């Protein structure tokens, strides 16, 4: 289980995340739903332990171990990974090299093709470069494929549908299904109701804190009715940063 307790992250005197708490049980798919600017991507960076996002208060506990001080590779070793909203591009690296991490992951051609098929890509992509020659949608599909290959305990998928056409929602569902089958805890960061509905449970994130949790449909309705009118839209809480 991944437990997040009272997380607070301050930037320029503003609490981007403020008293944020949540629990993510093993093998379940969670959605963290919220508008732009409420702290969704910040939460994903804090969970992954990016160098620029480790100066937070509160605690992150994975299976009983506090992991606050752990770096990205150390968290990755514990089985946490991140599917980036806008994945990095790499000059000169092929899709095959990226997926196998330069050969570190030992996969047969059949296994690679099988995983590519899940994200709607064929074997021709293995020799393509993970650079600007891939469209945003193709790059995103490669990212989802790489997540499946890593076989994580916990994955944070930051806006998994961004750059991917609406017709491909089924593909995202297939990816979630595959991850769930392997017992992966999935945390989907999203502002899309359709994506939130794919989860087992959902949180509503607003103003840097979890406002509500429950059944995805319940949270979606809450989001639809109240979030548009909420004063916290695009404006993280100006909290008392000294506490």
């Amino acid at each position, binding site marked *: 289980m991944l437990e997040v307790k009272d997380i607070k992250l301050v930037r320029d005197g503003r609490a981007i995340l403020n008293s944020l708490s949540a629990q993510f049980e093993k093998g379940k798919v969670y959605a963290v739903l919220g508008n732009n600017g409420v702290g969704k991507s910040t939460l994903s960076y804090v969970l*992954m332990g*990016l*160098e*620029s996002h480790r100066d937070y208060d509160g605690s992150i506990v994975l299976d009983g171990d506090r992991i606050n001080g752990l*770096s*990205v*590779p150390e*968290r*990755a*070793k514990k089985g*946490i*990974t*991140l599917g*980036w909203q806008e*994945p*990095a591009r*790499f*000059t*000169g*690296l092929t899709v095959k*090299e990226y997926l196998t*991490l*330069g050969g*570190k992951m030992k996969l047969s051609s059949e296994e690679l093709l099988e995983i590519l098929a899940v994200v709607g890509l064929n074997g021709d992509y293995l020799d393509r470069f993970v650079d600007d020659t891939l469209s945003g949608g193709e790059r995103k599909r490669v990212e989802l494929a*790489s997540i499946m290959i*890593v076989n994580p305990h916990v994955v944070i998928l930051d806006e998994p549908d961004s750059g991917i056409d609406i017709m491909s929602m089924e593909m995202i569902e297939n990816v979630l299904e595959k991850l769930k089958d392997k017992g992966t805890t999935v945390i989907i960061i999203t502002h899309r109701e359709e994506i939130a509905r794919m989860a087992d449970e959902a949180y509503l994130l607003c103003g840097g804190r979890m406002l509500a949790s429950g059944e995805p449909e319940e949270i979606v309705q809450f989001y639809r009715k109240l979030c548009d009118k909420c004063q916290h839209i695009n404006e993280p809480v100006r909290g008392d940063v000294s506490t």
Partner: protein
Amino acid sequence: MIESSYEREFKAIAQEYERSGGNVSDFLRKDIVSIIVSGNKIIGRNTVEGVHLRAKELDNGVEVWLDIDDGIVVDNPIHLCTGYLKPEGVQTVLIHNRIGDGSKVKFISHCVFPSGKNFTHSMVADTNVGKGAEMLYEDTHMHSKDGGVTVMATYRTRVEEGGRFQNLFYLTKTRVGKLYVKMYVDLEKNASAHLESKVYEREDDYLEIDEEINLNGEGSSGIAKTTVFATDQSKAKIINKAYGNAPFSRGHIECNEIIKGDAVEVGTVPELYVKNEKAELTHEASIGRVNVKQMETLMSKGLSEEEATDLIIKGMLR
């Protein structure tokens, strides 16, 4: 073909050539133009119809003339291999290439100096690419591990109307030692050039690259791109220049220097000069550590910092 008296020397160079990624069997094929130089000796050569190869031994090196008739498409790359097996000395290589109008040719050049402790290799290549001709020159260097090699390489190229020239320089697998590269290209009407250099510096390696594109003809275009990965106490100074001298000429220069290590010293100077109001020149330059987002992307998949750096750099220097 290999001179029988130099078979032992050929084997030693061939071993290093293979290490640098070359295929030695190409030197033994009759349908491939090749020349192999060791020190100041020409130990092997071959040519095909339409390609005229002459070579002369100098006191401390060789001089080579390579003339390609008009309209010749050389099917297989021309292989040049320059080696020096002794730890000390000086080698001078002078190359004169004439690519006939409408001809197409690719050169693969490997320079192997595996034992150099106090060795200087000086190379000057002057090249003329004829009207509508296409030439690709790919130059890969393999130097010794202890950094005792100094290379001074100068390329002067004129590309005539409608011609295309591409020069790729790689020194990524071994220590650099001291490397001074100068590339000058003069482009005539509608001619184009692409110059690219990739260097991986280690320990106290030193590098200077000076690239210059002269866009003299209307509609000519050129790109000069340099990528350097500087580590440890290495130093690098890169100067990329472009002169827009003709209408509708376009030039772009780019230099990316990635650094790793507190004692690294690198610099880049882009220079753009326009002498015609219809010319267009652009430049990009960056100096910094390996892109953090790229690093964290790979580390979040399970690579260590070292492994992630290696993979990123491998791609960039490919």
